[in-house]
């Protein structure tokens, strides 16, 4: 329980976005309600924040170029025709790729010879908690798959998008930085430590700050 007398404006500003989201506990909510009754400054920040959200969430804020819908419809028709004729689509070439990956997985060529770490095969298991439909990025020459926006994707010009399920089926393992939250219960091998040591600064600092 937050002491109402102790609630400072700075504290209110820090929580105001969560307050608007309905994402503060009952005690803090009551303390903030109380604070808004007497503090004009904070009240005006609250009203303004709500106005910002209301204005920008309005459909009228989105303008599409003239003819957008027509051009989209045409392109989708072409895409559908190409699919119907059975070639040149994104998923069509995935089939042989997936088949190859399964074969490769069967004889364990790539991973066991290039990354001779005993945890590798276990490490390939923990994808269980990742939503199978989540779209993830893979690149040539790397065994990890990533959430879009991850800072440790190498070879970016070879990026492909797959679902997490496909990536796991093809033998990719989750990136321990961007997909960390899904891997908390999994045992991590050396790969994770290396990557985290290099890259986790930004995410961790923000997490710490948000917890404060």
């Amino acid at each position, binding site marked *: 329980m937050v002491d109402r007398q102790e609630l400072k404006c700075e504290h209110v500003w820090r929580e*105001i976005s969560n307050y608007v989201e309905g994402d503060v506990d009952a005690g803090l909510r009551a303390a903030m309600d109380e604070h808004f009754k007497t503090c004009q400054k904070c009240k*005006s920040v609250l009203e*303004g924040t709500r106005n910002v959200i209301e204005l920008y969430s309005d459909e009228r*804020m989105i303008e599409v170029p003239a003819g957008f819908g027509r051009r989209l419809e045409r392109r989708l028709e072409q895409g559908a025709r190409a699919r119907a004729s059975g070639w040149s689509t994104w998923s069509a070439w995935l089939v042989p790729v997936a088949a190859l990956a399964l074969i490769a997985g069967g004889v364990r060529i790539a991973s066991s010879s290039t990354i001779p770490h005993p945890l590798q095969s276990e490490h390939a298991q923990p994808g269980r908690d990742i939503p199978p439909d989540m779209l993830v990025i893979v690149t040539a020459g790397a065994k990890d798959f990533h959430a879009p926006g991850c800072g440790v994707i190498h070879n970016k010009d070879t990026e492909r*998008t797959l679902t997490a399920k496909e990536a796991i089926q093809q033998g990719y393992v989750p990136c321990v930085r961007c997909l960390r939250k899904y891997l908390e219960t999994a045992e991590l091998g050396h790969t994770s430590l290396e990557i985290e040591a290099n890259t986790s600064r930004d995410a961790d600092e923000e997490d710490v700050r*948000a917890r404060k």
Partner: protein
Amino acid sequence: MAEPNLVLNNPGSDTTREQDLIARVQRGQTELFYELVRPYERRVYAAALAILRNESDAEDVAQEAMLKALANIRQFRAEARFSTWLIQITVNEALMRRRRERTVVMEGIDDRRDEEGEYTPRDFADWREIPSEALERKEVRQRLADALATLDRKYRDVFVLRDMEQLNIQETSEALGISVASVKTRLLRARLMLRDLLAGGWERGWFSRLPFEKGSKPW
């Protein structure tokens, strides 16, 4: 078992209609796909534009994203909202394009810097009422778009996905590949910065005094 019956329990419901359309497209009636995505085409375009800030790139990426959604329609599971799934594909495509092209060098540098300390509101102008008709005016929309464009990209991305595209916090976190805590921190800052940029102006009547201002491109 026979082909699932497509007679709808509640033909008036948009959701049911959408589920029906999804099922048909998944079974190969791809010509119905445009009908399925049409209600979301504006949001898809806006998501791409917010990330790429270039109208023709945004249109191209929006189309690519829709094609990708069509190619992967069988992967879609009913537990997710279709609109969210579509937006997430679009965000993926747009982020990939942005990384590939690396056009916005200045922003790239800024993004490496983390938030220093807390953000303190600067303007305490009273801003309770927003005239509902304000958004009818082009210059008001332009003013809002300009304000959004001044935000660092890390804040803008989060704000656009959460507050304009209506993804929830978790979905925003997944779409951008950042933690939930980071989404919340950046969202707070984005909202407060926009409030600072707009509150005083609204109070002092900027929005009613800009009839002939030449607008830059939105976002």
